[in-house]
């Protein structure tokens, strides 16, 4: 987008809006950080009180973080969430790869309707499913275990992964497989050894998306898990830090911040793929 004209025009039309956007989007994170280290005495001063410095604090404290790590099962929740997210992602990638390949590169009856069918499942609201799912979970005796989530998360991850990977697969030329098969490879081998490696960026993108979505999920985790040791980060923080007492906003923000860190780290390593993933999928 070209902005012609004088320097000042560039400032108004470009720099200023950009700065506003960045500030607006990132301010809550700054707020989380400040609240995390702000001592309680300052936290609970009403907004009209004098000497109120909301944007910084002169007496930072690590008490909230300490409380979070020592008095709650936060580390356990992080481990749980990590475990669940990794496994759910693995399962979804596996299914998504196979299904995406089939739907985009193979011809068979009902291919179109199956694709649409998978997409339709994305529309079914979780609030409709969780009560009947609770019954299924009970029958399989998975209640209150991470497996309840590991097996149910793919229900919304697979459609997404499939759709994403289909976009990538479609971009790979058909000739690759045909050459391989002429050379004697089976369909399976062609798929696994030729096509999949060509779609690695797509696989990484799908994986990261799936991981993020799993980490973010809330309803199923809220309904299917009950023991404190089994909870995920989102549910744990909501249920155990939103307490009746006066003092937990600090730890809440600490939890919110620390709970976002793993996803942010993975994201920072793979941001290229993340952006490319969205790019590839919307182009597809």
């Amino acid at each position, binding site marked *: 987008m070209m902005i012609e004209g004088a320097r000042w025009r560039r400032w108004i039309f470009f720099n200023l809006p950009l700065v506003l956007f960045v500030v*607006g989007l990132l301010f809550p994170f700054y707020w989380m950080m400040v609240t995390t280290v702000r001592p309680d005495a300052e936290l609970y001063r*009403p907004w009209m009180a004098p000497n109120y410095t909301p944007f910084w604090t002169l007496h930072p404290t690590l008490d909230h973080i300490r409380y979070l790590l020592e008095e709650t099962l936060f580390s356990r929740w992080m481990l749980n969430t990590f475990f669940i997210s990794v496994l759910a992602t693995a399962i979804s990638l596996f299914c998504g790869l*196979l299904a995406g390949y089939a739907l985009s590169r193979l011809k068979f009856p009902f291919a179109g309707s199956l694709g649409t069918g998978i997409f339709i499942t994305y529309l079914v609201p979780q*609030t409709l499913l969780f009560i009947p799912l609770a019954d299924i979970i009970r029958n399989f005796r998975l209640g209150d275990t991470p497996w309840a989530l590991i097996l149910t998360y793919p229900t919304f991850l697979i459609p997404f992964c499939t759709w994403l990977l289909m976009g990538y697969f479609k971009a790979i030329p058909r000739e690759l497989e045909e050459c391989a098969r002429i050379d004697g490879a089976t369909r399976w081998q062609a798929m696994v050894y030729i096509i999949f490696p060509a779609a690695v960026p797509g696989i990484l993108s799908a994986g990261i998306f799936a991981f993020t979505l799993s980490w973010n999920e809330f309803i199923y985790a809220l309904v299917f898990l009950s023991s404190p040791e089994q909870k995920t980060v989102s549910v744990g923080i909501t249920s155990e830090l939103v307490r009746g007492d006066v003092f937990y906003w600090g730890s809440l923000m600490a939890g919110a911040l620390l709970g976002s860190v793993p996803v942010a780290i993975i994201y920072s390593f793979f941001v290229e793929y993340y952006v490319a993933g969205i*790019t590839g999928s919307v182009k597809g």
Partner: protein
Amino acid sequence: MAVESIVGAKPYVTTSRRGPVTRVLENERWFAFFLLLPTAVLLGLFIAYPFIRGVLLAVTDAKVGVPGKFVGLQNFALLLNDSIFRTAVWNTILYTAVTTVFKLALGLWLALLLNRHFRGKAMTRAFVLLPFIIPTVLSTFAWKWMFDPTFSVINWTLFHLGIIRTRINWLGDPVLALVSVMIVNIWRGVPFYAISLLAGLQTISPELAEAAAIDGARPWQRFRYITWPLLLPVTMVVVLFSVIQTFADFQLVYILTGGGPANATQLFATYAYQIGVGTGLLGEGAAISLAMFPVLLVVVVVQLLYIRRVETL
């Protein structure tokens, strides 16, 4: 077909002996079948089957711990008479419509800004996605604290800038509460729209715009007649997914207002949860969720048709 027969006929099979399994898998149809099997099983077991059970639940008067008996469409009749339900329907539609418009507008603007070259571009792009990455629940807590009636930092800022005299009751006034919820949703969604639209923008070759500029087109005209039409397919897809997500939104409202004050921010999903799980009226809760489905289906079908039409342009 020809390729297969050639393959079958070739004597120098480099792979191991082709047993019966391999042969079956060579058949395109069987291969597809087996590839789709895991997905079909998982989705069938954990979506299709519960969906049917959910539908069945919606036509009974089941309560927690009590299986309940068949009551036909009574739950739905009750819902139509339930003013809270009607409020929830209206809220959801309003919520989805308004946030989508804003997310699209702001996302597009941000995408246009990010499409230029400037120092720190990569890093800015990375940071800008953060609101979308962070678990919704956690960032919503931060907002809840920022909106707090007694301790809000936003109020403080506005007060000291002289813009307001008394505090703004973000979460306590019914209209403002809905606005607050929308603000958080827009905040979350803009990065996603921005990055997706940015990807779309980058596929538009810059020569087109340059050529138009040479021909004398102003920036606004260039945008309207070149950029926007080329961006439309991407836009529609992004909007589609976003609408689906926003319509079924739960976490945000649950954390920020719990549906209050007095149901002013009640959405389909939160109301279904409150009735089904909170009060234990499972049949009614399922009916509410089920009611969401046709509305969503209509919205999605309309959009899909529009996409198809746009794509063939």
